């Protein structure tokens, strides 16, 4: 493939779409133009939906391929997990296909719903719940009054924790309003510039994509 097709053409398409999206989002010229813009904007959004849906299928195939390769490598510690992933993926896809062929929603197919609710859901919830133990043991070690900023962090953490619980209100009713104040004033003051910084960063990224300076999304250059 020539450089034009491999590199320049995708860059031109991306730049064009960015310019169109900016036009559709920010500019209102008149009602007729706006209507045309809305139709085109909707079409672009719908394309994105279709591409994402197809990407999910590609993702599923990629997971399957990765784990088949793991089995081929015959690594005994990994092989059992790869087998579980492959078997489960095939079962879920088959059940989903069966549901679709029966004319019912995939999630209401009893076997699919059972596997999801009683196998996947508890495992996922347990993974997240385990965090509490790490947080408890980390807080014991990290919240130490080493220096003035650490002392400030410690005080704020105690206020927020007590403000979040019923016990805090039993000790002193002021913990809840104080927690709200910390949330509303210092916290927002800290997060607003972060949010604005992300916004500026995205603008810069968009500009770099338009002028063709940003190429990492295309993968490594040959």
């Amino acid at each position, binding site marked *: 493939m020539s450089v034009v097709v491999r590199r320049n053409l995708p860059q031109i398409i991306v730049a064009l779409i960015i310019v169109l999206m900016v036009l559709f989002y920010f500019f209102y010229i008149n009602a007729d133009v706006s209507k045309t813009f809305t139709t085109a904007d909707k079409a672009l959004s719908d394309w994105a939906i279709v591409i994402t849906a197809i990407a999910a299928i590609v993702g599923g195939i990629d997971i399957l391929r990765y784990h088949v390769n793991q089995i081929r490598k015959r690594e005994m510690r990994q092989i059992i997990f790869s087998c579980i992933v492959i078997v489960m993926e095939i079962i879920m896809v088959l059940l989903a296909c069966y549901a679709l062929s029966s004319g019912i929603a995939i999630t*209401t197919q009893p076997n699919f719903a059972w596997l999801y609710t009683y196998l996947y859901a508890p495992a996922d919830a347990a993974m*997240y719940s385990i965090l509490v133990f790490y947080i408890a043991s980390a807080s014991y070690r990290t919240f130490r009054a080493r220096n003035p900023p650490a002392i400030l962090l410690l005080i704020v953490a105690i206020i927020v924790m007590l403000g979040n*619980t*019923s016990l805090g209100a039993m000790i002193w009713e002021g913990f809840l309003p104080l927690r709200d104040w910390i949330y509303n004033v210092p*916290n927002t003051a800290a997060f607003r510039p972060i949010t604005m910084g992300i916004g500026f960063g995205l603008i810069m990224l968009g500009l770099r994509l338009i002028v063709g300076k940003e190429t990492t999304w295309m993968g490594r250059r040959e």
Partner: protein
Amino acid sequence: MAKEEKRRPFGMAQVIYTLLIISIVIPLLNPVGLPIGISQTTKDVYNYIENTLPAGSPVLIDLYYEMAARAELEPQAAAVVKHLFEKNCKLVFVSTITYGPIVFELLKSTAPDLFEGKQYGTDYVFLGYIAGNEPAVASLAQSIRGTIAVDNYGTPIANLTMMANIDKAEDFKLVFIVSSGTDTFGWYVRQWYTTHNVPLLFGALSVIGPSIKPYVDAKQAIGMLTGQRSAAEYETLVGRKGLGLASMDAQSFAHALILVFIIIGNILFLATRSKPKPKEVKKK
């Protein structure tokens, strides 16, 4: 030869974990019923739905959370859904995450009282999972019928009575985003609030709360609920004892225990620091 590190079967970490399990499990099995104060943030949300939102308004609810976040977010969703149904609002459920359809079925099965007397298609609908993230949200704002042809159960949107007059963002009076991610809130701010001026309400995890607070302070959202605490407060306000209230005692005791750990940690730290360091022997 280096000595092999011996792992203690029951060290300090294990003591902490055991105490933590006890502090969570016992209050869950035997709730103490500690009183809960209502924060102004939750009161604002309640007052908006109660006093400002017209009765019978169409409301879009995006269930964007997975199983891991269910314990924190489902009680919020259930409490707000109860309040909205009490106001005879027409609820359009949707999900922009793959877990959505299962999460919706779980909400229905764990809180059947919410949907009692409410008819599918007339009082509420579930559009199912819509792929595409922000573009999907943008597309829905422009036209639901133009984005999807059928709901989660394969019924054509045109056949759903409730959807006859509901199609685009302007038809909704409120969007309630229950999300375990941070980006989701930004999508709706950009695609529903900024472009169509539809009021937004956020339901987020405790850890996400601080990062989305600027949107609420900038009045880009009417308010937000964060974590189990807000869920418990909202359950108190709407008079439905659910998972939020049930887990507040456990959360209170767990937090109290963590505070005790922090205090002990600091006492030990200060005691170690105040000890005179052994003098170093000067090398000749």
